[in-house]
């Protein structure tokens, strides 16, 4: 059975070009870039090339890119660096819909004596700039708000938020793990101080990420040790993966504008068809400001894990915000923050596409999904009542 992979916000396949690019550095060229001999030392140049490629995708300078081991490390580093740069300030602001890499780090800081504000979002999952203004005070050390949400796909008004914070001279970090490679980002124009990204969300391997730190911004390393990354992130470079990340960024940049159109076309087709063929379904998220590849749909009266496992039988991969799939008993914190009723959260399904998905795959899901929902609704006591009505 062919896998139909519609779970690209969770992780992506490694692009074949990326694998080709990285393989020699796993096989023959295994040196340590810090070495004096050419065998190792020559890798330094490759790492700098990768750095330029990552910077290129973001409109940043290469010296503004620090390689890390993942998005979570980038997020943790950014927050830690921020609070250490302004040690007298004890207030941090984030939102209720952040990724756990930010949310739980803020909770950690809160336990260490910081005051943390978690901004609410609207029913559409959108952030209100006025709410942020209200939350700011003299004591605010850093504001960390995501670029785009992994579950709903909602894009925050990062430019607007950044302008406002820049005026007030408050450090601004954005977790752009879901945005980089999916939508154009130009840090020449975008006023953010720090930005996190992750390799495996844009067709590079797992285990590599990067943190952008605006030139001139104060920075404190989180991982301490050797002089790698100019002393900003110790630890021997993950050479092959760093090179892979560079290549993946280059690929993403090459095709970005066409890809946005392509993915939006597929996504909209899928979404419209499912809303039409499945009664009592609705979109979660701000349709006017959303990643082109993501749709989050709630199917009332059915439970997400059951839907996913039925889809799994057809090789279709998606994800859900239901409690049963979250590993805890609590349903998605994102959808809850958006005020989606519990009944709808339990039946929420996220499809997230990539450039490797095809229209034929979308058609297949459009065909499979309605009977799956219908059958599960027939099983459900609530679905039955509804059908009778």
């Amino acid at each position, binding site marked *: 059975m062919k896998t139909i992979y519609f779970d690209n916000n969770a992780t992506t396949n490694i692009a074949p070009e990326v694998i080709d690019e990285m393989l020699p550095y796993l096989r023959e060229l295994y040196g340590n870039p810090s070495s004096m001999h050419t065998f190792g030392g020559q890798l330094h140049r490759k790492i700098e090339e990768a750095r330029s490629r990552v910077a290129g995708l973001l409109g940043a300078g290469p010296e503004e890119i620090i390689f890390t081991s993942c998005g979570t490390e980038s997020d943790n580093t950014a927050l830690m660096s921020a609070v250490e740069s302004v040690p007298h300030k004890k207030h941090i602001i984030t939102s209720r819909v952040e990724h756990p890499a930010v949310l739980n780090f803020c909770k950690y800081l809160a336990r260490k004596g910081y005051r943390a504000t978690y901004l609410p979002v609207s029913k559409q999952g959108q952030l209100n700039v006025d709410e942020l203004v209200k939350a700011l005070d003299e004591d605010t050390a850093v504001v960390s708000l995501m670029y785009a949400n992994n579950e709903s796909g909602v894009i925050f008004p990062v430019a607007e938020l950044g302008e406002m914070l820049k005026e007030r001279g408050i450090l601004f970090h954005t977790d752009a793990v879901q945005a980089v490679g999916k939508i154009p980002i130009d840090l020449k124009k975008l006023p953010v101080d720090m930005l996190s990204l992750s390799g495996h969300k844009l067709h590079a391997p797992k285990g590599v990420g990067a943190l952008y730190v605006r030139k001139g911004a104060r920075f404190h390393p989180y991982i301490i040790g050797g002089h790698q990354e100019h002393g900003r992130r110790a630890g021997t470079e993950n050479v092959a993966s760093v090179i892979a990340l560079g290549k993946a960024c280059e690929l993403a940049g090459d095709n970005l504008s066409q890809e946005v159109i392509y993915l939006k076309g597929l996504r909209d087709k899928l979404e419209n068809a499912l809303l039409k063929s499945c009664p009592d379904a609705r979109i979660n998220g701000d349709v006017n400001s959303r990643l082109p590849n993501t749709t989050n749909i709630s199917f009332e*009266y*059915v*439970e*997400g*894990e*059951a839907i996913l*496992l*039925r889809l799994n*039988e057809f090789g279709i991969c998606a994800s859900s915000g*239901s*409690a*049963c*799939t979250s590993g*805890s*008993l*609590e*349903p998605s914190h994102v959808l809850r923050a958006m005020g989606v009723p*519990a*009944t709808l959260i*339990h039946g929420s399904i996220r499809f997230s596409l990539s450039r490797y998905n095809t229209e034929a795959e979308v058609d297949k899901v459009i065909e499979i999904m309605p009977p799956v929902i219908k059958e599960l609704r*027939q*099983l*459900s*006591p*609530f*679905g*039955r009542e509804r059908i009778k009505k």
Partner: protein
Amino acid sequence: MWEYTDKVKEHFLHPKNIGEIENPDAVGEVGSIVCGDALKLYLKVDEKSGKITDAKFQTFGCASAIASSSALTELVKGKTLDEALKVTNQEIAEFLGGLPKEKMHCSVMGREALEAAIANYRGQPPEVKEEGRLICKCFDVTEEKIRKVAIENHLTTVDEITDYTKAGGGCGECKAEIEAILRDIWALKKPERPVVSKKLTNLQKIALMQEIIETEIRPGLQADGGDIELIDIDGNRVIVALRGMCSGCLMADVTIKGIQDKLREMAGEEITVEAQ
């Protein structure tokens, strides 16, 4: 991803006895859509024999909730009401070849629906559950239910209670109270450690022995400059190695005997301990 057995998958993908029964003799309804799972059980009962002639269900929930409901209907069909009442949540889980521990609450829900249906048939008030003191607000779980499930399933930790009833799995505010209830239950009754029986897999046995050795035996030996290591478990034979001052100690036999007594006391009389 959950590790479901083939049996769970089968009963999830092709559930038995789905739907409603026209003019049922008994209906049992538990759970709610807000909590994420709900089950409605319909029974047809033969008045003369008291036997369940038909059982059907409707379930809102995850794969294991649907499979547990299907298993439940299969288990009770043909039984008299009294026999059916003896079906435990463990039996539902076993029928399915086991459930992931975090999903045991699905089997508990099945058992509850059955009780509710039989109570309904016998004209008893349907919501027995409402009576007890509400402990977990997030998942609407009463003290009575926690006690019952804890005793029936030998649960001793808050995490286990969460796996079996969901209580404590939300905001977590009720955890202290659950702990107090557990302390209360097991203070009266010495914690009945799950007895080593054929039902435990070898891995489970090893884990259990390891735990007893770590918490009950090692500290004492280490205080005397000795140490112990669990080498293997073969059926009810527990093979250990004595280390440090214990190894070669003239009292080794006595020590082994002492360990055996301890393990027997905590995990079952049939255990023998040997030194390597």
